[in-house]
């Protein structure tokens, strides 16, 4: 261009395209096809349109998951709603009534039936975990013959054929069962046995109460287990009976016991034992003696009371009293002042000791008030002598056929191998076990029974109280109930429902007079879950104290081994339940293992520390287990839990997350724990669970135990006590005397009234709160498993627990307080998220994953959490749980137990107790649907609902009449760490013990 010196290269070179440019400064619209730009607007729109259409055509619709709607919907089923069915728990013979929560045709939660007269709404750990046992993928799905899967027709034919031969040869047939409380089943078994020339049912319980029954046969003429009515006892003396934990019917006894612990009239509980049991840890007075001395103290007590009553016993001289005479005097005085309102019980399986117990109760006039033999309990019916007689018969080849139901003698008898060998001599061995366990694997045929949640049955745990077990799901596998199997082999096969109905029409309906119509009676019972019917009083003769022998004197021994049952596994029947394996033992807080308990003094003396592997040997029996220092245990006692070393528990080897430094839950080639049953003994009358004169040696090896709590005192370690001499006021205690003088006794400091926080969050609607009565809480752990079941809390495996990463949302802290002389005080404190009003966790989450609700809940928003863990660090109660890994949920069958109302959390997310917000929301919706306000008791979080002691109260703190508000006004009420001004919504009622100061 003229006048412009600058030229571009194109201009200089005379590029024709460039030169054309200035003339075509404003190209006409529309742009020429394929012009300079090469792609016009119209082409673009065409292309875009085609591209979109093409893309959409290529897209497949979201893959259709198989959703098969009901063609004809079931009338009463609304998907998404839970349906409740009354039934009975079959996890142990105690027979607590339950309500089964059914979602979409499968049970997901068991709860105690509040109307049931025995359990009164509580359910223990074993009951809560039983629902998981239903979804065990290792349960047999079909009968097994000779180790191979078979079919019912084939097995029935084989068995019937064999039975025909036995009948022809008039051979002996035995039906070996555990305690069966079902009258219908017992009747069927007895008629089945009656069809043989020599057929008999033999009952034995692994956790045997045979001595109690034998003792009553001697003293009252009837071989019965009395019904113990703890709710009528103001003074309880227990000689090694763990009635709050594992003895006979703990839920029933806890409910009764707690009823009498209502202040200000507190009952008095003395426990005489050699190891620290759950019951002993709750006792007002605990006397620690060696195992053989328990009976001796009892003998002294009996002798003193008999002398007092004017009919002295004919003992030879007794060895001296092993405890302080003052303590015995006190016990006697207390018992005598509570005639007719006291209860002496003993867990010793020794007939002589039990006869002494009967004598004591008789002298105190307790029969008829706190003990009932006229309407007895049927919760234990075992007869150890009959069992050993059977064993002798089997060994001599006299038994032609044996049926084994609900027992595992090869595992839990001291001479299990003897039983296994004897089984080989029996022509027909039929088991009913749900898996090929130690005993059933040696049977010719296994006819697997339904799980109790899948079957129709009945029960009479206590005379006059009948329960019906109804199924909540169709049988998952090809199993068959016991009654059906028997009826098939008797030649008249019938469904168990029909058998039950017939039996009830003829035998049960006639025992009651309230209902006229059988159908109405049946419907009412199935609906309510129980029926109270008349019970013919058992015929007893007046108390006979003939020929009472003294108990054997103490056998001096360096070490005595005591075997005991743990609350989660009992006799080992639930060893395949991961919830129970991971439940921290209420006393030791150890999971996934058994161990040898030794007292602190003994451990110091021999230089034993936690985790040192010890070898316990008695004769040819030996076991190697890690040591655990157990405060409160007698110095000469080593104790080991039964129920471990079960066959098949190696399935839990990889139950936890697998990673580089992760260790398997089960040692290589091993099982969970070791079986201690070989140390049991039989003294000719009953099975003994203690063995004097064992040797204990150190192997020098170490084994890490996985414990959920590693520091056990409220006081800081000794050498750091300089500035902190007092125990921390986390659990506050007072004696009854102090309490009666000052209801706020035990309070350490008042709550700080002044606060810098403005009152800008008014809770106008409900404000949810909890109040836990620490005097009522026994530490049983039912709340822990209930929460796990309700909230889909994962199982993490032993290594993770060892690393202190267990996932339980609620935990029970257990603290020891040394009392000198090796005595120890124990307190329990359930701790869950306190839903603080000024929550320290809420302020520190960077992404607002934890916020506060208008009803006072601290909400954890799983979807938003990025997992920085500051909230967990800032929680003074340490109640938050982090998902360290993706926990395995591969087992599809087991996933059926998951509660659909609660999300499954993925890796990297924080979770914690929500006060069962899903239950709160459900209750609110239900109330709104019914057009009414929410009432106290409408919302019951899982922990509160399950507690056999009703220790946890939950409700609306804004309602002055709610239980929570009433407990808040109780002078015993306090909050943990209130001085931090976090305003927790959970309060505790101080522990009041009926003991003297000090």
């Amino acid at each position, binding site marked *: 261009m003229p006048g412009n010196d600058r030229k571009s290269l194109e201009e200089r070179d005379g590029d024709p395209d460039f030169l054309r440019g200035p003339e075509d400064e404003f190209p006409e619209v529309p742009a020429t096809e394929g012009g300079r730009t090469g792609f016009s607007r119209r082409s673009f729109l065409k292309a875009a349109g085609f591209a979109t259409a093409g893309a959409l055509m290529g897209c497949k619709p979201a893959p259709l998951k198989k959703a098969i709607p009901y063609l004809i919907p079931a009338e009463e089923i609304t998907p998404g709603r839970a349906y409740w069915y009354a039934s009975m728990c079959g996890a142990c013979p105690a027979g607590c009534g339950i309500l089964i929560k059914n979602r979409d045709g499968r049970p997901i939660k068991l709860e105690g039936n509040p109307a049931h007269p025995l359990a009164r709404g509580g359910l223990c750990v074993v009951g809560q975990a039983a629902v998981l046992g239903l979804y065990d993928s290792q349960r047999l799905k079909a009968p097994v013959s000779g180790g191979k899967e078979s079919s019912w027709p084939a097995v029935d034919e084989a068995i019937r054929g064999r039975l025909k031969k036995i009948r022809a040869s008039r051979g002996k047939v035995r039906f070996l069962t555990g305690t069966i409380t079902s009258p219908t089943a017992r009747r069927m078994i007895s008629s089945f046995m009656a069809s043989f020339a020599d057929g008999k049912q033999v009952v034995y319980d692994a956790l045997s109460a045979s001595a109690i029954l034998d003792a009553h046969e001697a003293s009252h003429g009837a071989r019965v287990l009395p019904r113990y009515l703890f709710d009528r006892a103001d003074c309880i003396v227990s000689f090694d009976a763990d009635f709050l934990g594992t003895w006979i019917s703990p839920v029933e006894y806890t409910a009764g016991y707690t009823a009498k612990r209502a202040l200000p009239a507190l009952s008095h509980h003395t426990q005489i034992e050699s190891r620290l049991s759950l019951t002993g840890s709750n006792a007002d007075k605990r006397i620690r003696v060696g195992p053989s001395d328990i009976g001796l103290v009892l003998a002294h007590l009996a002798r003193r009371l008999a002398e007092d009553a004017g009919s002295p016993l004919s003992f030879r001289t007794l060895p001296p009293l092993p405890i302080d005479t003052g303590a015995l005097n006190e016990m006697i005085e207390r018992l005598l002042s509570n005639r007719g309102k006291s209860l002496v019980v003993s867990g010793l399986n020794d007939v002589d000791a039990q006869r002494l117990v009967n004598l004591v109760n008789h002298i105190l006039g307790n029969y008829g008030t706190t003990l009932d033999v006229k309407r007895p309990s049927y919760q234990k019916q075992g007869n150890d002598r009959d069992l050993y007689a059977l064993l002798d018969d089997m060994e001599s080849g006299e038994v032609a056929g044996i049926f084994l139901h609900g027992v595992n003698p090869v595992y839990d008898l001291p001479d299990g191998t003897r039983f296994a060998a004897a089984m080989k001599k029996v022509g027909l061995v039929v088991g009913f076990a749900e898996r090929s366990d130690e005993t059933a694997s040696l049977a010719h045929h296994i006819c697997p029974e339904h799980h109790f949640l899948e079957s129709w049955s009945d029960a009479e745990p206590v005379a006059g109280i009948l329960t019906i077990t109804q199924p909540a799901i169709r049988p998952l596998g090809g199993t068959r109930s016991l009654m059906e199997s028997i009826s098939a082999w008797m030649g008249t096969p019938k469904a168990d429902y029909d058998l039950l109905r017939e039996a009830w029409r003829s035998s049960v309906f006639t025992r009651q007079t309230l209902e006229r119509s059988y159908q109405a009676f049946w419907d009412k019972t199935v609906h309510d879950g129980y029926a109270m019917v008349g019970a013919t009083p058992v015929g007893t003769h007046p108390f006979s104290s003939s020929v009472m022998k003294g108990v054997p004197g103490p056998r001096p021994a360096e070490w005595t081994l005591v075997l005991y049952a743990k609350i989660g596994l009992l006799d080992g029947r639930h060893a395949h339940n991961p919830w129970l394996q991971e439940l921290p033992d209420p006393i030791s807080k150890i999971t996934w293992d058994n161990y040898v308990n030794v007292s602190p003094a003994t451990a110091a003396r021999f230089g034993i520390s936690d985790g040192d592997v010890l070898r316990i040997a008695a004769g040819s029996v030996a076991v190697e287990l890690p040591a655990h220092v157990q405060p409160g245990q007698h110095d000469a006692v080593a104790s080991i839990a039964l129920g471990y070393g079960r066959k098949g528990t190696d399935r839990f080897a990889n139950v936890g997350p697998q990673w580089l*430094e992760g260790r398997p839950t089960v040692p290589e080639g091993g099982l969970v724990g070791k079986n201690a049953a070989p140390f049991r003994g039989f003294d000719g009358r009953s099975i003994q669970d203690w063995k004097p004169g064992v040797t204990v040696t150190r192997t020098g090896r170490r084994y890490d135990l996985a414990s959920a709590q590693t520091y056990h005192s409220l006081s800081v370690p000794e050498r750091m006590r300089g500035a902190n001499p007092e125990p921390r006021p986390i659990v506050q205690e007072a004696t009854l005397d102090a309490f009666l003088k000052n209801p706020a006794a035990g309070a350490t400091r008042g709550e700080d009234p002044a606060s810098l926080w403005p009152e800008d969050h008014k809770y106008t609607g409900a404000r949810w709160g909890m109040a836990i009565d620490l005097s009522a809480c026994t530490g049983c752990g039912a709340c822990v498993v209930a929460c796990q079941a309700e909230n889909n809390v994962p199982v993490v495996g032993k290594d993770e627990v060892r690393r202190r990463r267990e996932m339980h949302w609620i935990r029970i802290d257990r603290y020891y307080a040394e009392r000198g002389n090796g005595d120890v005080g124990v307190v329990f404190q359930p701790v869950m998220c306190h839903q603080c009003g000024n929550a320290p966790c809420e302020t520190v989450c960077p992404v607002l994953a934890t916020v506060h609700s208008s009803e006072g809940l601290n909400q954890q928003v799983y979807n938003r959490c990025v997992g920085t863990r500051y909230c967990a660090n800032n929680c003074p109660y340490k109640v938050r749980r982090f998902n360290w890994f993706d926990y395995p949920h591969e087992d599809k069958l087991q996933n059926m137990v998951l509660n659909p109302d609660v999300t499954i959390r993925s890796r990297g997310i924080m979770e914690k107790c929500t006060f069962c917000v899903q239950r709160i929301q459900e209750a609110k919706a239900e109330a709104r649907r019914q057009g009414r306000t929410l009432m106290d008791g409408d919302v019951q979080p899982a922990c509160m609902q399950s507690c056999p002691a009703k220790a946890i109260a939950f409700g609306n703190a804004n309602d002055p009449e709610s239980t929570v508000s009433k407990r808040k006004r109780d002078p015993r009420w306090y909050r943990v760490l209130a001085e931090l001004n976090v305003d927790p919504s959970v309060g505790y009622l101080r522990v009041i013990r009926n003991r003297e100061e000090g």
Partner: protein
Amino acid sequence: MSTGARTYPPAHEPLISGDKTLKQITEDVCAPIERRPTWLWWVGFLASFCALVLGIAAVSYQVATGIGTWGLNRTVGWAFDITNFVFWIGIGHAGTLISAILFLFRQKWRTSINRSAEAMTIFAVMCAGVFPLIHMGRPWLAYWVLPYPNYRGPLWVNFRSPLLWDVFAISTYFTISAVFWFLGLVPDLATLRDRATTKIRKFLFGLFSLGWDGSNRTWMRYETVYLLLAGLATPLVLSVHTIVSFDFATSVIPGWHTTIFPPYFVAGAIFSGFGMVLTLMLVTRKVLRFEDYITIGHIEAMCKIIIATGSIVGLAYGTEFFMAWYSANEYERFVFFNRALGPFAWAYWTMVLCNVITPQLLWFKKIRTNPGIVFVLSLVVNVGMWFERFVIIVTSLHRDYLPSSWADYSPTLVEVSTLVGSFGLFFTCFFLFARFLPMIAMGEIKGVVGYTERTTNVHE
């Protein structure tokens, strides 16, 4: 400026020894960049790189598998992760102090070390920034800490959370430091561009020197921007570590809940940062023959800062202890007993030995002026400062209010590898920096070299 008269202020030694001319300075500083790297460099670089690879492997494994691969548990939710984070951020503070604060205070001796120190800051902040990312349970959602507009409410972040303040503080710190460092580099990159012999070097240095033409106008603008950035960076020295200390100070945990943390942490940061600067510089000056630029005087000055800040840290330890006793709060008192006598007493006493006792040696001039001893002491300082953060975090968490939750902690292989990897990242970056970029700020140092007649002739 060019009067020709000697203008050393009295009582000052020459800042740069050896009577360097401007040309000599250029030659000395550019020499390591322009020659082939020595075997020492290769050894150092490869070792660092191996450590970095180990770290990457460990972090990948941890992100893919879960935080469970670390030794944390429900009581001790933070340990190595946040210790490393605070450690690295603390180290960065020295660089910013040297670059910005000493500039504002007209401490001309800073010019020998400020480039390397600022580079150290950048790399330290990079190392530090990795940890908040990977310590999250779901790091792929880390962007949720950023307040970006969205349709979910809109859902904002929690402005009351110290972790969020960290996000702002660290990103500000990194941004300002990077910009400051880069802009400071521009004149030197231009020098390298002009001296470049290969095409790639010419291109890259040319690109990054942003067309620097060395004119008066450019220099004036440069100096203005430099001053402004120094002013912006100065408060960061105090604020960033204060914010980081709020991660602990705003919590309710005894041992964390204390108002002394902001000044204590800032002093500690400067303390540890100078320790790292000394470690790096003492090696650098020996290997690259920079003794004339990083003189004993510089080392002495840095040691004085170390002893000052170290004494503040020691005073803070004493104050914490006193206040715990004076408060009569049983939980607070126990934390300190537990630190000194509990299971982590070995870490506590290491910390006290390294941070309080050994730096006292620097009171002695003989020690201050001995590069060998000072090098060892600088390492000790950093070990001590790492343990200080470890002690603060782990001992406060592992035994807090409820004794039932008291737990132990021990690191896993993955955690240790991650720590080693962070050192790997730091040193890899530093070795690369030493190889490709001028370690001494030529432009600035020429401004403070001694003024003799010879130096007026720039082109000599």
